[in-house]
């Protein structure tokens, strides 16, 4: 685990924090959704870097899965943000 890799991981985690800040502060919901999506791709990054760090290609499978399903959450949110009103009147 040479120093360079650690710095990269540090940067990525820092990016995670920043995204988290946006997620917390994000005035509107779409802002939070974007942050969550960003988190997804950041995680892919972290996993990939870690895979290299530990010379374990097995982690890449996780990255593949995450890359694919990460955006599902975002699309779900988007669908609902746009929908706005309730599908049927409140009980």
């Amino acid at each position, binding site marked *: 685990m*040479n120093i*360079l*890799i650690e*710095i*990269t*991981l540090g*940067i*990525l985690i*820092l*990016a*995670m924090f*920043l*995204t988290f*800040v*946006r997620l917390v502060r994000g005035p*509107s919901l*779409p*802002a939070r*959704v*974007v*942050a969550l*999506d*960003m988190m997804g*791709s*950041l995680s*892919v*990054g972290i996993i*990939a*870097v870690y*895979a*290299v760090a530990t*010379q374990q*290609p097995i982690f*890449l*499978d996780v*990255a*593949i899965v995450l*890359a*694919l399903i*990460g*955006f599902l959450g*975002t*699309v779900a*949110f*988007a*669908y609902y*943000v*746009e929908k*706005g009103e309730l599908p049927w009147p409140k009980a």
Partner: protein
Amino acid sequence: MAEGISLILLLLGAVFMLLAAIGMVRMPDVLTRMHSSTKSATLGVGLIMLGVALAFSDFDIGVRALAIVIFTFSTTPVSAHMIARAAYLSGVPLWEGTLSDEMRGRYDPDTHTLSGKVQSD
């Protein structure tokens, strides 16, 4: 040698992602924020995956890294589009610095249609 390049690529990718995150925080409104984050994040992942492919210098790993890149490149625009459209239509305020907004008032919420009469050329 390949080791060195891959480390640098990883670092570069990480930096780009950091930029995306900073963009995420600094940008005034949702749409501009989205630009910086989704695009550069995708680039970041691309670079990291390149670094990974180089680091392992094994064909299978390379294919997997390529797969990740392809997936990211194919899913991010879709999610970007969805979010942008949703944000815009749900009335998220644009940055006051936006010069013009030709889509304003064209969306009819109940029939979900967007009138498309041609403007200039």
